[in-house]
């Protein structure tokens, strides 16, 4: 990973089979309450041939994060490596970030009214929060901090078909480019000749 690396998620819709391995791994690793979905798998046009696609969606850790721009208490901060995190002690649960987010990533506990109980929770790219790294409080509020241990975020680590990629955006785009370019490898590139058109028996 280069010094200027910005960490990104990318989900390859040609590979995602909506197995939900990512979302279950996430919930299990961070011991999330049942109604908090840091990561979700969305399926479009289910059951229709040629049109059904699935994607795994969570916080996309935007470079120019709208949540950060609208937050009235300025609880968001963006790390040098591009991971967007927030401070739950500052969050007032107003849900402005949810309105701003194009991906519906911010989650709020459903067992209390907004602002009373529920401070926002979202994907941390397994990088914890502003508390002391790997402290008990960080674990309680934000879940595991795998990045500090040099591990891949748990969702991508668990992805059964390696549809969900995470890491240095330059490397991810290399991996995806390789997949796209190799598709079609071995395909017929020569023009149609006699045998193709009429069969070898004629």
């Amino acid at each position: 990973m280069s010094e200027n690396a910005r960490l990104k998620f990318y989900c390859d819709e040609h590979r995602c089979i909506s197995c939900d391995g990512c979302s279950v791994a996430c919930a299990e690793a961070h011991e999330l309450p049942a109604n908090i979905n840091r990561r979700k798998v969305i399926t479009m046009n289910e059951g229709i041939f040629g049109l059904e696609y699935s994607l795994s969606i969570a916080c996309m850790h935007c470079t120019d994060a709208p949540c950060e721009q609208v937050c009235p208490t300025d609880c968001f901060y963006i790390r040098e490596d591009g991971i967007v995190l927030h401070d739950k002690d500052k969050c007032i649960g107003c849900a402005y970030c949810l309105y701003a987010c194009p991906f519906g990533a911010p989650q709020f506990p459903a067992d209390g009214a907004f602002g009373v109980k529920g401070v926002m929770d979202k994907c941390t790219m397994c990088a914890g929060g502003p508390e002391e790294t790997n402290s008990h409080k960080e674990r309680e509020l934000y879940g595991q901090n795998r990045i500090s241990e040099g591990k891949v975020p748990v969702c991508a680590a668990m992805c059964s078909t390696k549809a969900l990629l995470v890491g240095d955006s330059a490397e991810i785009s290399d991996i995806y480019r390789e997949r796209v370019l190799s598709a079609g490898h071995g395909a017929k590139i020569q023009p149609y000749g006699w045998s193709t058109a009429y069969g070898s028996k004629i």
Partner: protein
Amino acid sequence: MANTWGYGAMTNSLGDIQNAKAIIIFGANPAVNHPVGFQHFLKAKERNNAKIIVIDPVFTKTAAKADHYCQIRPGTDIPFMYGMLNLIFKNGWHDEKFIKDRVYGMEDIMEEAKKWTPQKVADVTGVPAAQLIQITTLYAKSNPGTLIWAMGLTQHSNGSSNTRLAPILQLALGNMGIEGGGTNILRGHDNVQGATDMACLSDTLPGYYGLSDGAWQYFAKSWGVDYDWLSGRFKSKEWMGKKGFTLARWWAGVLDGKDGNDQIHNAGTNLKNLFVMGNGITSIAQQAKVKEGLDNLDMIVLCDPFVNEAAILTDKQDDVFILPAATQFETSGSVTATNRSVQWRSKVVEPMYEAKTDHDIMFELAKRLGFYDEYTAGMKIKENKKDFTWPEDATDEIARIIKTIGLTGWTAKRIKKQTENWHMFDQISGRGYGEMKGEYYGLPWPAWTETHGGSPLLYNINRSVAEGGMGFRNRFGLEHDGHDLLAGAGSAPKGSIQKDGYPEITAENIEKVLGITLTADEKKRIGKNWKVDTSNIIAEKCMEQGIAPYGNAKARAKVWTFPDQIPMHREPLHSPRSDLVKEYPSFDDKENHFRVDTKYISKQTEKDWSKEFPINMVTGRLVNMNGAGMENRASKYLAALTPEMFCSIHPDLAGKHGIRDGSMMWIHSPEGTKIKVKAKYSFSVPEDRIFMPFHFAGHFQGEDLSHKYPKGTKPYAVGESANTVTNYGYDIVTQIPETKGGLCRIEYA
């Protein structure tokens, strides 16, 4: 499979699928059932431009990734495959040389295929003729092509014919024994292949040795027990050789033919006790009968890490014992994967709380029943020890005894070394690097000797036997109807001393076939044939001469011991097409089929089932669950994905019955049973059929049985079992239940 070419197992491997140019997935849903393995299919598409063709009654997650999808009517796989063969033979796309040298009986298939024109196939299967032609053309012209299947082909009353015609299709195209080809049957659960190899079956001893007297003699000797003591454990000697009951119909053994149930042949008595180890018997067809069976037992013992829902289903109040079994993380040993490869699994923690490992439970039971010494004797033989070490000595015992599928190379020491070095193998070919050079990952069986590197690709004659090559097995004699059954000239594996076909190796023919002379000492130590040669002389000598110990024969398209010598279409017992039932009737009823009289034609013609029950019903799996779903529904996060039992139904069909998305509906079966489930609108099923997952339990015919769970053991999700309404119907050879395609009637609840 075994009856076609010798072994009933996946011929290639998941990694090898990346070498395919076309992939047919027939009645299987790997995206849901083998999500990690499915990456190889997707990579084949990316790297090899492979075309994926899915043939399934239901549009699955696998179909969503396919290039072509055929929505076939349940139970019409044979017409579809004959339709393909019809076009293949007509256009001369078949591999003539391959068929001539390596296949017996293809002429009969060619005759039958002539009847199945695309128009005829379209009428029976519901797949348009143009689509059949398009798919067949694509598949026949894209070599190599691999054929994948799972329960969608097997769980039919003629499933054993389905699983013969699929290999025949591959033989016709010469797709066998090559990289990227083969018949890749996907095994459903962890270690299913291993469990089958070790005979969790009622018709054979471990290693598919069968139940003949010779087999029992061999095992008595190899286990270090007295043959007479062994036969004395049976009611009489003749019962040693008889098949037992199966998982599908054990309950008939309890019900003893009373109240109109099928008659049994069990030495004049019925089954009284049931001992279940890690089997979700609530995911077996005909739950109402399973319940009746459970209720009439004297004693039920259930060993599982979670509460086996058989305990919830039964009304029995006394003598139901739930033993806490340890999980895979609390024990160690070898496990066999779908591609016949083995891995060592290490213990992570000691068994927690009161849990005991499966083998400890068995040992304690053997002690109480008074045969512990005999039970464990085999583990001490190799080194003549006083005591044994679990599981290493058990693994070595298996390696010492099981020659039929070539487990000689699977010593505990080798398996551990393989697993410890699993990063030193190529992911596609399985070949080892560096220290592991000369071995394939997981030593896929047959691994003929203690140094053999395994056979990743069955029936490949382009490799030497030492490198995993072999022809088809000589298993069905040397000739039939005057035809030679050995392989044709020049079709022996590479580097072989014999260039043509040859018989399986015995002490008698070894010198002649291998062109060697045995020493007097070797002659003294050698076993009668390769299957019982514990001296390993036959296997060792064969490796030196490049000979496969099991011979080099032709595969057969015709099985003369089966009710249908070549696969024939027969409508399911409960078919929506009564007109076709007359044309393609089921088998004659079969007496004493795994000890139970089993109905075929009499059930099929009892009445026109389609009048009262017009809708086809298919069951299958969900990605977040497996088997009976006991442990998955006990996981908060897995249960949250599908918290309720449901039925996928086309909005137009639902609309006709006034059923709205999310409302409850009744499903009635011809057996007189019913379930109440939630309707889920879905375009994955057409208007003439419904789909249901089979992982739920805890409700029965509309009644909630949740109060029966012992305190603190109720799973997060409970619901009706789809198998309460699966129909009567069992395969004619294997007795697997016909769950993929029965009939039902639906109504708004």
